[in-house]
């Protein structure tokens, strides 16, 4: 097994608001190997975006990383000073955001927005940077690339804008690409094109990818490994096949239950499990999913379950994996064939 590219340990991030501390991320750990695609799923507000923003120091001013470490090629991102972090951003680590309509500056040409990124990190001439930008536009298949550099974002469709974002994120050959719901704001057909492009670019350029999404179909098609988040924590982690074949956490099972059939290729958004996610200003002491869990036990309300390794590389944060816990079909007991 190769050295991890990124190793996050016990990340905790809070926002300090007029109504108290919002504990958005409460102890997230995961590893990412070079060239691997890690999918992160979870309901809205589960802390997916904040986890990634914390790594790059992109939190809004009222947000703060409270604890944890994030080793990227041996450097702890959370300890770097601003200047060193800025060097990494856009160079070693690229990022794509959810809404290509608002993530590009409306008053600068798309070319300028790509070129400034290149010029920031590479000591090359403006002409060379422009040349590079044209190549990038060709790489992400924007037609008549050289001409389109001079266009403004509003002259592009949503899908084309997201291609611009991807070109921008890849402009300095990052080792890690963080894509935060890159397709959520797009039409279904465009979504598929963008995902296909991402997969293709990943296999060609070989960078590692963190792919955040709501869409389990996207995960199934794209990711190598999956992280399921809930209430600011990782609930389950497994290789993608294993996750879909043997989900071992009641929350994951709830998510999967809402998908009719993955194999017929219909992409399906998460349909909500009854109840609402916990208030992160006063997170529950026990399992955050307990109020909505069909299997909740007295122990779940009392104490936070640890992550049990149910198989190699497959962890699940649930008391049901305790040796003395009652048997529940499918989770800690095999489903009869």
């Amino acid at each position, binding site marked *: 097994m190769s050295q991890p590219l990124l190793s996050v340990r016990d990340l905790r991030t809070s926002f300090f608001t007029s109504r108290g501390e919002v504990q958005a991320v409460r102890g997230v750990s995961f590893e990412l190997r070079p060239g691997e695609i890690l999918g992160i799923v979870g309901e809205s507000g589960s802390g997916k975006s904040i986890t990634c923003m914390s790594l790059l120091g992109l939190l809004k001013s009222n947000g703060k990383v409270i604890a944890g470490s994030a080793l990227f090629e041996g450097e702890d991102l959370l300890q770097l000073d601003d200047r060193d972090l800025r060097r990494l951003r856009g160079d070693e680590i690229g990022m794509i955001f959810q809404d290509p309509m608002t993530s590009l500056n409306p008053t600068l040409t798309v070319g300028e927005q790509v070129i400034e990124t290149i010029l920031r990190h590479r000591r090359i001439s403006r002409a060379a940077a422009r040349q590079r930008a044209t190549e990038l536009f060709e790489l992400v298949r924007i037609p008549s690339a050289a001409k389109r550099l001079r266009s403004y974002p509003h002259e592009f469709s949503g899908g084309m804008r997201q291609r611009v974002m991807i070109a921008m994120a890849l402009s300095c050959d990052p080792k890690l690409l963080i894509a935060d719901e890159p397709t959520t704001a797009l039409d279904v057909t465009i979504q598929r094109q963008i995902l296909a492009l991402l997969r293709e670019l990943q296999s060609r350029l070989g960078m590692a990818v963190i792919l955040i999404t709501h869409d389990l179909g996207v995960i199934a098609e794209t990711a190598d490994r999956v992280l399921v988040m809930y209430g600011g924590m990782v609930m389950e982690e497994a290789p993608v096949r294993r996750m879909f074949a043997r989900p071992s956490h009641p929350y994951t099972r709830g998510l999967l239950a809402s998908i009719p059939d993955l194999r017929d290729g219909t992409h399906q958004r998460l349909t909500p499990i009854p*109840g609402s996610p916990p208030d992160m200003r006063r997170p529950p002491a026990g399992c955050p999913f307990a109020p909505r869990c069909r299997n909740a036990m*007295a122990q779940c309300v009392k104490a936070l379950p640890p992550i049990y390794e149910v198989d190699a590389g497959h962890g699940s944060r649930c008391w049901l994996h305790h040796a003395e816990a009652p048997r529940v079909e499918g989770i800690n007991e095999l489903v009869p064939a």
Partner: protein
Amino acid sequence: MSDIHVAPEMWKPAARIAGAAEQIAAPSLTYWQDVRQRLWRNRPAMLGLGFIIVLVIAAIFGPMVSRHNYYDQDLKLSNIPPVFQVYEVTDESGATTRFFFNSGNLNLYEVTDDGRIAGLIRGKKDLLKKQTVFAFGDVEVTLNAATQTLTRGGGVVLAAGGWQWNMSNLFGTDQLGRDVLARQLYGARISLTVALVATLVNFFIGVFYGGIAGYLGGRVDTLMMRVVEVISTIPLTLYVILIMVVFNSGFFSVIIAIGSVYWVDMARIVRGQILTLKQQDYVAAARTMGASTGRILTRHLLPNSIGPILVALTMLIPSAIFIESFMSFIGLGVTPPEASWGTLTSEAVETLRAYPYQMFFPAAAISLTMFAFNFLGDGLRDALDPRLRT
């Protein structure tokens, strides 16, 4: 790993749950409760609201309880300050006279023990020596106009006593001897009435116009909005002035002038709100259920637009007050002896050199009112749009 000790009874199903989810979630406030709470916590806005309430009460009831009215003139008692230093002179028969010296017009006024103005004291003017001699029984007091000093008999400088608040006219009197407090209260009445009525007129025109444009949509909407665009580029103050010229100064002209001109923003807001709300399902639902246009407007659309409209209204009131005072200031507002904050200020400007303090009350009144409405408006906007806060 799974060696953590757990007592057997802990594996029983958790006490359920129906209420648990709600218990854990924050007490969810309705939007309006939330707005009210945020507004309540905004101290400047609440101070503003408090001030406005006090002002309105004073404007309504003040003139009723005041001993003075706003138009009675008494030229003998003009330009009396609200506070003054009292001098005392005792003559040989032991009678003491209390008086104060008004340096603005070089007059002496007799003051009673409880601080009321008893009247003007007449003296003999000596124009050559530029001094005036006042006789109190057998004591003579000489006022030197150049040095503004009072001397007694043999040249002893008269020392001033303590400060005394003017109990006859708490805010003093103006250049025509009218009670400033009574005029202030009356002016508040006029200014607030003008502002309120003009704002309401604007409100109705704006809601009506914007409502129709937004509701009908299509080409009518485009045309109506073009008209709005033209109107909003016209410098409206000029139009208020022209209308005042046509109708002649006066209370109702001011209301007509201000009321007919500033509805454009309101129309825009209402139209915008209605356009977004029109997309929403419940309006379509109401329509399929046969609700009339008027009913849809009043029951569904307006309640939802109330927030931004409220903000626009609170911001319109101070502008109306300001424009009224501005008009009065350049001589186009209410006609004398009627008073508004603008006329009071411009009257005070006339006497600025001799009696600068007369500027204080009208300037303070209008400034504080503007503060109050601005704070309230800002607070309302913040409360309605929590995005803008942290």
